């Protein structure tokens, strides 16, 4: 029998190691697996590489990982925003390095890893500072940059509902990076507001197929 549901968020994050590359879903504070992040802080693994669109604000979510000095590298498109003082402190002290990635390139690098591809050429970033050190090629008369796949050891994702097979349904703009990150890691852990009986998510409405998901934990929260 397949049953990916675990009883607690602490059980869900067991097995994350020091030095892991951790993909974290969400955009701003929407679709962020807040409870899994808190469990990761309690687990106390260090030297993590965090891949996420932003770097957290205030005293919740991703900000906690920087506050507790668990991150040695952040890979993000939009780290500089109001209320990100914990990330800024970690960055300015030299404790945390930053790899700035254009948002669409971030999504596609994850997708390339998920799809087993060796990378792709994109016009995004051509002729800019973010092209530095990368292979380039002119394709159909336009300069393209070679971008490499971005694979996670672990993905922490959030969804509205999930079942014991790991099928996930997201809601509104909380879908964002969650499906592609779920597909791009060796171990994918999903927090869902509600675990529902198999079949109650219509197969046509599954956004992230359960084959990509290893663990599901119910965390409640706003419907």
């Amino acid at each position, binding site marked *: 029998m397949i049953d990916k549901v675990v009883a607690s968020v602490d059980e869900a994050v067991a097995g994350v190691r020091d030095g892991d590359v951790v993909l974290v879903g969400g*955009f*701003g*504070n*929407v*679709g962020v697996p807040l409870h899994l992040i808190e469990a990761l802080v309690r687990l106390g693994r260090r030297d993590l590489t965090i891949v996420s669109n932003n770097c957290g604000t205030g005293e919740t979510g991703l900000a906690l990982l920087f506050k507790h000095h668990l991150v040695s590298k952040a890979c993000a*498109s*939009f*780290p*500089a*925003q109001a209320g990100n003082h914990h990330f*800024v402190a970690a*960055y*300015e002290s030299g404790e945390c390095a*930053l790899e*700035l*990635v*254009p*948002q*669409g*390139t*971030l*999504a*596609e690098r*994850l*997708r390339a890893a998920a799809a087993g591809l060796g990378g792709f050429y*994109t*016009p*995004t*970033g*051509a*002729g*800019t*500072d*973010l092209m530095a050190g990368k292979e380039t090629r002119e394709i159909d008369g336009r300069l393209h940059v070679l971008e490499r796949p971005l694979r996670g050891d672990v993905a922490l994702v959030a969804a*509205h509902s999930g079942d014991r097979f790991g099928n996930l349904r*997201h*809601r*509104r*703009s*909380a*879908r*964002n*990076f*969650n*499906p*592609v990150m779920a597909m791009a890691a060796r171990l994918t852990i999903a927090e869902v507001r509600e675990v529902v009986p198999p079949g109650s998510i219509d197969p046509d409405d599954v*956004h992230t197929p359960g084959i990509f998901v290893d663990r599901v934990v119910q965390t409640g929260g*706003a419907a």
Partner: protein
Amino acid sequence: MTAQGWTTDQMAARLARDIPDGAYVNLGIGMPTMVTAHIPPDREVMHHSENGIVGMGPPPPAGREDPDLIDAGKNPCTLAPGASICDHTVSFTIIRGGRLDVAVLGGMQVSARGDLANWRVAGQPLGSVGGAMDLAAGARRVWVLMTHTDRAGRPKVVVECTYPLTAARCVHRVYTNLAVLEVREDGLVAIDLAPGVDLETLRGSTGAPVRSD
């Protein structure tokens, strides 16, 4: 003497007038979001938001915010009739794949050949690029909405950008408080001037050659 020209609202309205009926548009964060309120009521325009929305509606009334629904600036938004939700890979397939008719972006500098700098001030250690490079590289038309000069009064339309580029040769038009400029193969052309602004005044505030149509 410095000419003021259009107010910020008037700039947004001037740009909105040029968005065709049926267009799919992406309005960048900051000043470009002001364009929404000025789209003429007889036009159906679909707003794309990089975080996976095609058909974004206006901000909700206070107390009616949906915690799962935000725009690219992370503010609460709504869905318009005909809206759809997608994930980030599809959202940027829309952007890079050339499906957006117009992207309206803010600007720090635009060069005479259409290079755009809008994500980072030179020398600033921490920049945030977000989706700007993808939008600049991928939209069919890139229109920049910005003040004609910076806070120190220096021209933002220049021969060569000194700030780090967002994309090279991507800008088609620049809407400022003084004029609407079109970027053509042979240079900048003023296709409209704000009231009280003549070509000579415009040239005095512009760091690159401009001619009239």
